[in-house]
């Protein structure tokens, strides 16, 4: 029996509020936490079958050209080497998120430096890696390859559907009391999941089982099957534990397809793990961006116009392009608007979804521009934003499902102690350090993705939740368990959540912050069905049933769940689908960031001294895991502001800083005390849980609060991220 819902309209009834178990929203530990911290959670490479061989991918070392020949003879004689494989089904790069079909395949055409073109299989990982290192590739390089967006031979596309314009922005700029007209640039980023990509493939006849590290299993299964040219039913993917994804594990990636092909060819299980350097070069990066932003405002700081035109890059033929301007159409008022989007086709590691594609970098630039407008107009930056919150989505003329930016701004300012603040930059000193504070708004679009789950109430009074949903470190096990425990009136210890197996009902997967709300809704619906079945057995109306601590209470009669079940199990499936609601209203999450930085007046080194994030994302399902998500997002915000940058050699586009020694993520010493305040909110348009996605909200604009604080500290406006010390040195006050 499946309970299905399509979100065509708002659902006002707050069922979770009517429940009495009292676990929803609570800051509960992850049920699998102990397994993870004690090293007992089996990640892909922890689960090697007997006789498993190891494969290591071989990369191209030119940016563009043809792979003419592989001379494998020398490698084949090395100790432990079992095979050197090159196959037309090998994938050029990972599938884009939710593609559901094979990415570009084949090894003849080389289109970026680092592209996987072969697999060396050996008895041990070390032997395979050595073989991969030694393999002689005969490549014929093309004469000319555009590797930088600014290269003259870089083809620039401007897809019609990605351009829009309303009113007359040029005129608004001419007539404005205050304007900002600047270009901001952000570098490429790598997802930087702690667990490198890895897949272990084994065949049983014509059936494939792949234990991998993936975010969206139902799509990955289709992508893998399509890549191999076999039926989806023949493919099972397991990913019960995933050591971080941040977008990099949305689509099937080259190591998964190569492992499956090698295992079939050799007739034994094959594991293919990427080295960290492989991950940098072969996994989709976040595109660098160049963003031209124009703001026009009247004398009160009310925006009359916004222009946001972005240039991003990708390999020719890749659909994805960093949706830089995603939040710009609805975040602030202003009747004259231009949205522009261009894509440079260049030969670098292909671009895809990384940590809040769109808003993470787009909002960062927009929020720096807002700060520039605040400085020009002399209006406090919080006040300036409050004056520009629109009543409805200005781009579509539809209402907001809920809107919490104003509350987030006011709460943040109060909590942080924003006022009084010295607005004149470069005036607050602490010894050698210049002190400043800055703020920014946060916003992220909210999505519901089709999702299914099965819940079984077993005759021993326990419940299991089953879905192919993933937990990429976000807290899915905890959150889905909490929804079921709350709905079925069970203590958490009596709910078992089983994830990461394509034999289970297909879920949304983890991505775009939509996992908990989408799949949580499916779990909720299954539980509603079980409650209905219990009512049938008890002969009561749905409203008469109270479930708590394993007992069903109807009127004054209290019966244990086991007795109600009488030896049988009750199972139900839930199925959530997006509907017309997303066209009727604009759904988004909002927040605010406040940061205090110290910039060294001698060296230009910046240290974040404190940081606050205030967020509203509908009902918070687990206050602890939600807070952790926000802390992680803001930490990435520190990285984006100060240190993170994929550095490409301008001659061949190769990534020069392809390890964590030189790709600078923030380390503990870079991260100060971060405070997170979660606002109470319910969004009846989102889903029956009234919850929205929170995973990515904490990075969307976070970097801007730091860059704006650097301006307040020093008077130096950084428009080219990250704000490394060399960009500050010249302008530092003496």
């Amino acid at each position, binding site marked *: 029996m499946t309970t299905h819902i399509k979100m065509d309209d708002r659902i006002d009834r707050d069922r979770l509020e009517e429940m009495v178990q009292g676990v929803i929203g609570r800051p509960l530990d992850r049920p699998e936490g102990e397994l993870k911290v004690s090293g007992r959670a089996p990640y892909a490479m922890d689960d090697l079958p007997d006789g498993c061989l190891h494969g290591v991918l071989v990369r191209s070392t030119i940016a563009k050209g043809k792979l003419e020949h592989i001379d494998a003879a020398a490698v084949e004689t090395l100790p432990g080497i079992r095979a050197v494989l090159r196959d037309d089904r090998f994938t050029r790069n990972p599938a884009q998120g939710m593609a559901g079909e094979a990415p570009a395949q084949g090894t003849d055409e080389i289109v970026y430096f680092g592209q996987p073109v072969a697999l060396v299989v050996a008895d041990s990982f070390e032997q395979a890696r050595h073989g991969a*290192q030694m393999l002689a590739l005969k490549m014929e390089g093309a004469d000319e390859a555009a590797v930088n967006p600014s290269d003259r031979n870089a083809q620039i596309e401007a897809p019609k559907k990605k351009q829009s314009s309303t009113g007359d922005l040029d005129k608004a700029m001419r007539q404005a009391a205050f304007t900002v007209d600047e270009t901001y640039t952000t570098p490429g980023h790598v997802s930087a999941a702690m667990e490198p990509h890895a897949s272990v493939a084994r065949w049983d006849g014509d059936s494939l089982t792949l234990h991998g590290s993936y975010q969206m299993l139902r799509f990955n299964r289709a992508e893998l099957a399509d890549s191999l040219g076999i039926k989806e039913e023949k493919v099972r993917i397991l990913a019960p534990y995933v050591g971080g994804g941040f977008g990099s594990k949305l689509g099937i990636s080259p190591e998964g397809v190569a492992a499956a092909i090698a295992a079939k060819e050799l007739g034994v299980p094959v594991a293919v793990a990427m080295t960290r350097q492989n991950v940098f070069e072969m996994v989709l990066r976040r595109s660098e961006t160049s963003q031209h932003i124009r703001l026009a405002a009247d004398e009160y700081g009310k925006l009359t116009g916004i222009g946001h035109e972005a240039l991003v890059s990708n390999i020719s033929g890749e659909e994805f392009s960093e949706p830089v301007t995603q939040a710009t159409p609805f975040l602030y008022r202003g009747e004259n608007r231009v949205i522009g989007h261009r894509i440079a086709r260049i030969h670098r590691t292909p671009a895809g979804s990384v940590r809040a594609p769109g808003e993470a970098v787009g909002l960062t630039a927009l929020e720096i521009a807002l700060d520039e407008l605040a400085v020009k107009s002399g209006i406090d930056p919080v006040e300036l934003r409050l004056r520009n919150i629109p009543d409805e989505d200005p781009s579509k003329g539809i209402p907001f499902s809920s809107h919490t930016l104003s509350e987030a701004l006011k709460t943040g300012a109060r909590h942080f102690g924003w006022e009084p603040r010295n607005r004149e930059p470069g005036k607050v000193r602490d010894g050698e350090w210049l002190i400043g504070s800055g703020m920014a708004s946060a916003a992220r679009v909210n999505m519901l993705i089709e999702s299914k789950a099965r819940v079984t109430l077993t005759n021993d009074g326990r419940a299991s939740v089953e879905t192919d949903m993933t937990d990429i470190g976000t807290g899915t096990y905890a959150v889905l368990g909490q929804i079921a425990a709350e709905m079925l009136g069970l203590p958490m210890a009596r709910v078992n959540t089983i994830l990461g197996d394509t034999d289970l009902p297909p879920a949304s997967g983890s991505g775009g912050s939509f996992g908990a709300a989408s799949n949580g809704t499916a779990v909720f619906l299954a539980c509603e069905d079980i409650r209905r079945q219990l009512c049938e057995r008890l002969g009561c109306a749905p409203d008469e049933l109270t479930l708590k601590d394993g007992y069903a209470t109807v009127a004054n009669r209290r019966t244990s769940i086991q007795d109600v079940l009488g030896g049988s199990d009750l199972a139900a499936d839930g199925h959530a689908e997006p509907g017309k609601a997303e066209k009727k209203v604009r759904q988004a999450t909002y927040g605010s960031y406040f940061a205090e930085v110290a910039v060294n007046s001698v060296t230009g080194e910046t240290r974040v001294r404190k940081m606050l994030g205030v967020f509203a994302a509908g009902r918070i399902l687990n206050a602890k895991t939600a807070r952790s998500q926000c802390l992680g997002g803001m930490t990435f915000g520190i990285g984006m502001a100060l240190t993170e940058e994929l550095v490409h050699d301008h001659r061949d586009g190769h990534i020069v800083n392809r390890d964590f020694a030189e790709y600078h993520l923030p380390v503990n010493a870079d991260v100060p005390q971060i405070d997170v305040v979660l606002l109470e909110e319910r969004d009846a348009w989102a889903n029956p849980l009234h919850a929205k996605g929170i995973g990515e909200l904490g990075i969307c604009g976070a970097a801007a609060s730091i860059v704006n604080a650097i301006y307040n500290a020093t008077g130096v406006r950084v428009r080219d991220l990250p704000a490394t010390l060399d960009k500050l040195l010249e302008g530092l006050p003496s």
Partner: protein
Amino acid sequence: MTPFDYTRASSPAEASRLGREGATFIAGGTNLLDLMKLEIMTPDRLVDISRLELDGIDRTGDGGLRIGAMVRNSDLAADAIVRKHYPMLAKALLAGASGQLRNKATTGGNLLQRTRCYYFYDTAMPCNKREPGSGCQAIGGVTRLHAIFGASEHCIATHPSDMAVALRALDARVEIEGADGAVRNVGLDEFYRLPGDTPHIESILAPGDLITSVILPPPEEGRQTYRKVRDRASYAFALVSVAGRIRMEGGRIARAGFAFGGVAPRPWRDRDFEATLEGNEPSPALFERAADALVANASTHGDNAFKVPLLKRTAQAVLTELTES
């Protein structure tokens, strides 16, 4: 990683002998193992010297300090004598790497760290240091980390050590036991070679030469410090670092000992800088003059041009710190 033999040396003499036969020494392995995994170094024989009894920190007859080559970076940084009399060394050690790495890394190994040049680290790239005669891809490429002093047209890589910079400012000497059993010691200035047209040769060590200890001269009065400037608060190599000590006499700088990191293929010392300071009363003008003298011969490569003003500013700030009352 290529297959290799592994032997544990039972004495310095045995280690030296095996070294002369072509073996590579391994101590903490914090750098070597990474380089072997990436096949930047492919020794076919390793001699483990980490168990040799070279892990003492002892006073020398003249009041100096002998630091065994196998003393761990973390132990050296925590040593009471080092903290009291050679504080710049403790600071430099703690500014390097991470706690875990410092627990493994040794004094001798730290001196012999290889560069972090991006192009040295990618075996698909030509690199004269990794593969003599293949060319230098860093020149004309990404040069943020690279040298402004002492480089050549064959190599512009920097030496990554923090510890060595402090040792150079402290006039440390390196004691070496040769394959013939003879013991000699050389100043750090002689110990490191500039790249010239042989950037793969980084020190005067010959096959079989084993660093047995580092010797510090008796502590001098005065103030000293180590200041490291980097792209993040920890676990990043120096963009620029300054190790400095100053002894004042009658309001004048009697003696200045300085070395600079992150700017050259070896810890950089500049006698003009010190000479400009010595005998003079400290003042901002003097410091600026000294800093100008320091960078007078700097040569930059695009991305690393910022190191010139950064080095000047940092040196001046360190001078101010060491001389202000």
